[in-house]
């Protein structure tokens, strides 16, 4: 259990025959920023919806503060501030009126909560402008205001910088970091932009086609996964067989019929070359290469050799 704020156990969501989220085990720790990284359609939103009880998991369990979400919605959800996909507000009302409705329904005791929240995201309080006349960025800010209004302990933010301008993005970033460092809030944030996540998150989960491929702290990822071995051999597919059978690794990627890359950090160049010789393959090249985090993300989410 180990005091995770969010913990999922084999969380799965199936739409029709396709699993949008498959056996995801996420662990979000107290007071950290967890970045859920994935390409479009990876399953980020679906995962977050299940964390908030907006959709029921096909199987698996969500635990928040160590308690199962199912059956404890009333107690647990009120401690969460969330933003899922596009901002949802009533177009015929102003920002203040919109927030008032949600403040009333949440039973927010602080009478200045609406005003404070709007100030925090830089929207005017006494404004006649209706939500339908808002720009995309302003709508997004209002959604953030809604998430912070009731001073929750945990934030679940689905692509919060969507539609913001560069200054807005950097403000949002420092705002989120402040929430975490000064107020000790826990934050789960999703994005398909790696740079965004790497600037912000303490821990990273990479989700692809509904599968959580990697879950690691940013520092470990940066130190460990930046390196790979590039191999030039006489027969790449035979080398792939060897890697799987003799070295028991699937963490490699076939570039073409003569070149491979091995990402498994536990395999040393010496061991690999020795294995190749034993298998009767000629080794033309062997390089130890450095990978940027960006390359790593591309490889993990776009590569084919990764199981």
């Amino acid at each position, binding site marked *: 259990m180990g005091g995770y704020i969010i913990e999922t156990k084999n969380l799965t969501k199936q739409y029709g025959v396709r699993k949008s989220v498959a056996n995801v085990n996420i662990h979000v720790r107290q007071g950290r920023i967890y970045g859920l990284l994935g390409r479009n359609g990876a399953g980020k939103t679906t995962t977050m*919806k299940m964390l*908030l*009880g*907006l*959709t*029921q998991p096909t199987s698996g369990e969500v635990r928040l503060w160590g308690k199962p979400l199912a059956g404890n*919605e*009333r107690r647990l*959800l*009120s401690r*969460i501030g*969330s933003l*899922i*996909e*596009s*901002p*949802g*507000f*009533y*177009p*015929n*009302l102003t920002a203040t*009126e919109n927030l*008032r*409705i*949600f403040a*009333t*329904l*949440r*039973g927010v005791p602080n009478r200045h909560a609406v005003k404070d929240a709007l100030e925090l995201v830089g929207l005017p309080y006494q404004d006649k402008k*209706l939500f339908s006349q808002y720009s995309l960025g302003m709508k997004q800010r209002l959604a953030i205001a*809604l998430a912070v209004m009731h001073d929750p302990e945990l934030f679940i933010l689905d692509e919060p910088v969507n539609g913001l301008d560069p200054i807005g993005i950097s403000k949002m970033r420092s705002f989120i970091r402040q929430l975490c460092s000064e107020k000790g809030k826990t934050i789960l944030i999703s994005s398909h932009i790696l740079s965004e996540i790497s600037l912000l998150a303490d821990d990273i989960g990479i989700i692809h086609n509904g599968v959580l491929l990697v879950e690691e702290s940013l520092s470990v990822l940066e130190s460990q996964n930046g390196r790979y071995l590039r191999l030039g051999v006489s027969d790449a597919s035979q080398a792939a067989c060897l890697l799987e059978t003799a070295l028991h690794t699937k963490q490699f990627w076939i570039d073409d019929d003569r070149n491979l890359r091995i990402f498994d950090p536990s395999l040393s160049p010496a061991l690999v070359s020795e294995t190749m010789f034993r298998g009767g393959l000629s080794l033309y090249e062997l390089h130890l290469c450095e990978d940027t985090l960006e390359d790593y993300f591309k490889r993990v989410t776009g590569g084919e050799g990764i199981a």
Partner: protein
Amino acid sequence: MLKLILCEFQKLKRRHFLLLAALAACLFPFPVTILVKGSETIDGSFDTILFMLMTWISVPLMVPALAGITASMLFNMERDNGTLKNLYAIPISWRHLAGAKIAVIFTLSVIFTMTTYLAALIAAALTGASVTGIAAKLCASFLVGIFYASITLPAVFFVIWFNRNTVFSTLSAIVYAAILEMLVWSGIYTLSAGGPDRDMWKFQLWNVPMMIFRWFPYFIDTGQPAADPSAALFVPLWQITAVSAAIAGISICLILQIGKRREV
């Protein structure tokens, strides 16, 4: 729950359609009063004017239309603007949300019939008609609002079930209201066409709008219905209450059931 209902009213802010409906409720009684006054076959008492407005001309068309359109607004609004996820994350259940919306529908219907009542009262007073039994008629107007809201709920269920855009939902509400109004007209036609020995067991006489039509004068004329030669026409309160309650109950169950299975 009260908070939820008040918030539902908040969400209808700047929907000018509702003002138009209120205006219609206020205006309807005046032309009716003038017409009735000018007619020689209909007596121009307050009773008759109110009876015509409540069960024949205004309410059977306007209340289902108003309630149906408001309902499609309230339900479609959440879906179209993606606000359900914010509500569910509070958490507010579909049961409570739908319950609040249904309460709004009932309230608006009653407001409409009460406004009609007041306007008819003013129109009657202005034309110098005798006004009696104010309390009983107020009560009857209130009940008419409740009954018509109840029989609009099946249409509300279908609007939610079909889950289409606002234009489709609004049109369905209007068509439904027109059907109810037509039921009243065909019922009245059947009544006036048949002689004293007419067959009472016809659908034209036993649908809910016609039952309301046949109950209303009995209720406001609390004196001696049995003395009336057409007493056989009258429908007692319990019958109309039971039928509307059954329709409302089934519809509400279906509405609560159908939304639960939908995910955001």
